[in-house]
């Protein structure tokens, strides 16, 4: 059985994202490893958003909320562990990455549940704006709440720990993030082909038809929204550990916009779209950011060009049209 062109491109992308940092580490260029880690983490966040946006057609303009929540979970737990002061109810802080990840995933999911339940009562432009408003609410809360740094943000003194791995070095940390990205892609792939995923995609294409076969779209969409938020929350925790810093800018509406941009640059609703998009975005930022401070001007032009003339994104150009778009 021959593989489709898109599968070949996907495998190539996955190998490339692994090979470049490994080679860079061999050559003693840790900067490129950090760059690749950034790609992997942003791609994971975009894979999470793609569950809601690509499969479910839910244009959430507020997923930065979950990204930032994940980041603050990492920052807050680490700072309590560092200062050896308990959080509320005598819970201790921790520097263990697995514990932090689980906490970030759970809290992002718990916050997403009421946000999704209220937002999904609306559709279309109202949905876009109410998700934006919820994210702003959390943004302003983080900005004006002084305990964890307020607008100045919160530093993570030392990168958190993973059993048996020296996370302070760039390559091992990249490999952790890479494995989680592959796991995230695996989740997306499983969801896409599952009964749940088929119902979700039907909810996007024709909600009335879904209802008429006896499945209420609301529950399906809400589940997708929460799963999507959990993956983005995990990515946020990784991002905070990468930068050793978390601030309200992770919660800002620019961040929400960027996450959507990553998906669109790569190709909406495709397995590896977020990976391609994140790679293009980070490379673009790096290449142009070195040449001119005004790189966002050119990013804007490119984005405008993609939206107006190349709607399939990078994978659309390379691998042809997606099915059922």
């Amino acid at each position, binding site marked *: 059985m021959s593989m489709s062109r898109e599968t070949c491109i996907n495998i190539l992308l996955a190998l490339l994202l692994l090979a470049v940092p490994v080679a860079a580490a061999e050559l003693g260029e840790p900067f490129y490893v950090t760059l690749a880690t950034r790609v992997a983490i942003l791609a994971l966040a975009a894979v999470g958003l793609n569950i809601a*946006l690509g499969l479910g057609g839910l*244009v959430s*303009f507020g997923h930065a909320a979950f990204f930032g929540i994940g980041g603050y979970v990492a920052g807050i737990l680490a700072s309590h562990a560092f200062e050896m002061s308990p959080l509320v109810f005598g819970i201790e802080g921790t520097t263990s990455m697995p514990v932090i990840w689980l906490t970030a995933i759970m809290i992002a999911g718990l916050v997403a549940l009421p946000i999704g339940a*209220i937002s999904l*009562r*609306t559709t*279309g*432009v*109202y949905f*876009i*704006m*109410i998700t*934006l*408003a*919820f994210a*702003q*609410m959390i943004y*302003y*809360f983080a*900005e*004006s*709440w*002084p*305990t964890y740094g307020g607008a100045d943000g919160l530093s993570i003194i030392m990168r958190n720990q993973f059993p048996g791995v020296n996370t302070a070095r760039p390559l091992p940390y990249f490999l952790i993030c890479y494995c989680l990205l592959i796991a995230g892609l695996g989740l997306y792939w499983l969801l896409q082909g599952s009964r749940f995923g088929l119902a979700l995609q039907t909810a996007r294409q024709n909600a009335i038809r879904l209802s008429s076969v006896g499945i209420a779209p609301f529950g399906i969409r809400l589940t997708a929204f929460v799963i999507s938020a959990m993956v983005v929350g995990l990515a946020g925790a990784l991002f905070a550990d990468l930068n050793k810093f978390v601030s309200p800018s992770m919660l800002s*509406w620019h961040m929400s*916009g960027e996450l*959507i*941009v990553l998906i*669109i640059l790569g190709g*909406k609703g495709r397995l590896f779209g977020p990976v391609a998009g994140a790679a293009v975005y980070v490379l673009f930022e790096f290449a142009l950011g070195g040449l001119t401070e*005004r790189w*966002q*001007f050119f*990013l*804007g*032009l490119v*984005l*405008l060009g993609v*939206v*107006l003339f190349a*709607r399939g994104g990078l994978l659309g150009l390379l691998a042809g049209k997606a099915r059922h778009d």
Partner: protein
Amino acid sequence: MSIALLIEQLLNGLQLGVMLFLMAAGLTLIFGVMGLINLAHGSLFMIGAFACAAVAAATGSFWLGLAASLVAAAAAGALIEVVIVRRLYARDHLDQVLATFALILILSEGTRWLFGSFPLYLDIPSLLQGAVPLPGVGQYQLYRLVIIAVGMIVAAGLYLLIARTRLGMRIRAGESDREMIAALGVDISTLYTVVFALGAALAGLAGALVGALQSVQVGMGEPVLILAFVVIVIGGIGSIKGALFGAILVGIVDTMGRFLLPKLLALVLPATQSGAIGGAIASMLIYILMALILAFRPRGLFAAQA
């Protein structure tokens, strides 16, 4: 807490609300008539403020600056509509969000390129400096009162424009059935450009008026844009009446929340905490209000006919 202080805060809320109305009216018109969600509306606000500050600095006249802000924002709006936005009417909301997000990046960086990273300053014109005594004790800045008056006049003018003129009739017709009015021989694409430019001019006017109260800088439009979104979602997208009501509600709730909540919490909490918690909750208040309203009325308070 004195009555004068309370009245002052109420007037501040009203002034914020009126300014939000100038933004929200354009957004809601553009959405109502063309079905377009325009994130770049905040950039038009910024363009108005920069045009006003630059012309006022060059000529020494605030009034020339104000005129320039209207012209610059309307011209920028018309240009954007003809070159880019026109291609987006038939697209879905996701494409509209992304394309106008790209426009924000382009316009913000472009403005920084032209004017540099330092903020510009705009003085209140000498005619409008000074304060007006409030009933009881205290006084209130004349300029802010003038902003409130300008907003009210614009609201009345918009009402007359839409309810009484031929252009307004076409706008209303465009809202209810755009294919039909195109079939009746109205040049729909010119109408769209005019509506977009009108909305842009209102945003530019708001930018110029507010520019004298704060510094004129890149990114100044974004917080206002998001507040204006909250306003039109509360009011019901497409409804001017909803925009006016929502704007004043949001302006007053936001201002009074920031003023009163820390004081109320001080009654039950120690002073060190009440300020921080009160401030944090107050900054979330309008979003909570919006979530509550949408939870019960998902299409806003004055939902326009779909």
